[in-house]
């Protein structure tokens, strides 16, 4: 099995270099950890609430709290804003003075969320606050509806105001689920990141894509060196057909890409408890994306004449396409044209595929379009890479 021998030699050479061990084995996990903290909301978030003194306002303020969100009450809006500005808080919620009365009268109240621009933690907190507020809004709406329908029977003797008030409270109690009534919260559209979603399950898939592609591309350096030193010619002088050498070298890049992605997948499952979803779907994603990376590396390795150029191109393409494809700043935050452009990269399709698997429990058929696009990339890159490498060999 000569192609296998050639492929394995490539893997062996990769790990002969100590710095590669660090680059391939250690840094991905450090990055998953850091990116998880940064974008995945794994740290303590601090939110301030101003105007939370009346019972309903207090309800809302309390509902914001969770193990990862600490709520601080503020007497005045000015002090709240000052603390947000200084970065002491990730964000602040301002409940207006008429909140309680407006709601009890069946009206619409508005609350304001303030944060500093460009703070990813604030954006993360913002989405959690919005989530909590919309849930509270649904409950309040149900309570208003209950009150308008005349409240609970057996309250006729009370005064009209008092009756309406207690009907509201009674409905609120029921709607809140204390009496076993569930209020289903319906939001329009799909939340991209389900609440309670693990922070590392958020950061691991994009970094798998980033590293797999980057590591595969840097594996082109070995191929460039093999050509430049005349080793590939020497291989060709042995009784080994050109197609075997090409297959072996291409398989070598693929093996390195596969190794990197499997390492990240299994490592993040063990270290950070990331659930990669449907095993078949995850396997298909990993294999196809590794094929894309391996194909690109073979093409690069066949085209470039010296290792310095190969390194530069690998880093520029690896990081550039990675960033554009949403593996550094989450693809979810891309909108409009940028999102369309992002989908010129295989990374964005990989991102979408993994998002379906990891966040929304999709199975293999559920990611068929992403798999199809990746298969297309892989086929084109491998065909081009093999053709160029064969030409470079015989020339």
């Amino acid at each position: 099995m000569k192609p296998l021998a050639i492929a394995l030699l490539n893997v062996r050479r990769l790990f002969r270099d100590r710095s590669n061990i660090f680059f391939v084995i250690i840094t991905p996990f450090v990055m998953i950890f850091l990116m998880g903290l940064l974008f995945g909301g794994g740290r303590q978030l601090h939110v301030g609430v101003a105007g939370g003194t009346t019972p309903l306002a207090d309800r809302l303020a309390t509902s914001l709290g969770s193990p990862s969100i600490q709520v601080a009450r503020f007497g005045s809006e000015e002090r709240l804003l000052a603390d947000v500005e200084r970065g002491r808080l990730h964000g602040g919620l301002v409940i207006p003075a008429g909140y309680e009365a407006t709601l009890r009268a069946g009206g619409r109240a508005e609350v304001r969320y303030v944060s500093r621009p460009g703070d990813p933690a604030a954006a993360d907190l913002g989405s959690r606050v919005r989530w909590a507020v919309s849930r509270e809004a649904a409950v309040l709406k149900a309570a208003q509806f209950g009150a308008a329908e005349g409240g609970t029977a057996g309250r006729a003797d009370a005064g009209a105001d008092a009756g309406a008030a207690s009907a509201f409270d009674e409905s609120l109690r029921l709607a809140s689920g204390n009496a076993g009534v569930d209020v289903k919260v319906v939001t329009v559209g799909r939340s991209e990141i389900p609440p309670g979603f693990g922070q590392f399950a958020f950061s691991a898939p994009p970094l798998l894509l980033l590293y797999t592609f980057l590591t595969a591309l840097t594996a082109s350096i070995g191929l460039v060196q093999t050509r430049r030193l005349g080793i590939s010619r020497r291989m060709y002088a042995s009784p080994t057909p050109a197609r075997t050498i090409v297959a072996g070298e291409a398989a070598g890049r693929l093996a390195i890409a596969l190794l990197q992605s499997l390492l990240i997948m299994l490592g993040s499952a063990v270290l950070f408890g990331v659930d990669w979803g449907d095993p078949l779907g995850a396997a298909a994603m990993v294999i196809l994306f590794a094929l894309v990376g391996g194909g690109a590396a073979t093409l690069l390795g066949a085209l470039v004449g010296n290792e310095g150029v190969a390194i530069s191109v690998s880093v520029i393409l690896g990081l550039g396409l990675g960033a554009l494809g949403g593996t550094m700043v989450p693809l979810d935050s891309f909108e409009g044209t940028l999102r369309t452009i992002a989908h010129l990269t295989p990374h964005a399709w990989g991102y979408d595929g993994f998002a379906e698997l990891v966040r929304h429990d999709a199975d293999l058929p559920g990611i068929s379009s992403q798999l199809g696009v990746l298969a297309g990339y892989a086929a084109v890159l491998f065909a081009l890479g093999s053709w160029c490498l064969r030409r470079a060999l015989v020339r």
Partner: protein
Amino acid sequence: MPVLEITDLTKRYGDLLAVDHMSFAVEEGETYGLLGPNGAGKTTTISMVVGVLDRDGGEVLIDGLRHDVTSVKTKALIGYVPQELALYPDLTARENLRFFGHLYGLTARPARMRITEVLELVELHERADEAVTKYSGGMMRRLNIAIGLLNRPRLLVLDEPTAGVDPHSRNAILESVQRLAAEGVATLYTTHYMEEAERLCDRVGIVDAGHMLAEGTRRELVGLLDEHDRVILRVADGAARAVPTLRDLPGVLKAGGEDGDLELIVNEARSLLPAIIGALGEAGVEVRSVEVREPDLESVFLHITGKALRD
């Protein structure tokens, strides 16, 4: 049947005729040297011989079999030592050998034994498990050769195997080539070191600008010159007395000299030397020193091409 026979081999790079209708043959056990300056077309010829470069014309036969870039069967008969150090620098000598052994189809056990053999042959067995990057230039050259010997080739092709090595390594390399030739391996050797060609090669082809200009044994090539060997002797006294005796020796074309010095023009200095010393002894002339000057391949090259072998 020659082990290697090439006929009208031709290679063109654009307008440049790098190799122009080159023909020669190498027999079993014979060492054939291609001697020529930089850019003469030696490496291009060799690349077509080992089958890593497509030719534009002509034919290559290995053991009588047609041979080109796709001939896996004949490639198995050739050992190739390229001009460049085609080694994985980050792997050890043994790992390099194991990998190429695999490509030549050696299976595990025979490969292990053969690797030990070739490592000993090039005197690298003591440092076989060190990464190649830690080797000296000469050690890398020797490993480069060891890989070419792995498959016990019928035809060994060496492209300037001694470029830039120390005298010790050079000697080790030349000795191993001589040993292989003695075992019957046909060898094609390129160099622009004239001394190497003279020491190793049974026959030499002189090439320049893609052409084979002259071919033959050293003697045959030197015969192309109007030059003969010279023997210069320093004697104690009685030089004049000895001159007539020396003139009468068969093979001596001219003899002359004054007091301390004698100069002879002869056919073959090396074989005549004992007779010359003997004759002087009989004449009672004491010899202090002897110097032999033979016309060499360098002079032949200069004569044929009008330029020096090395820049």
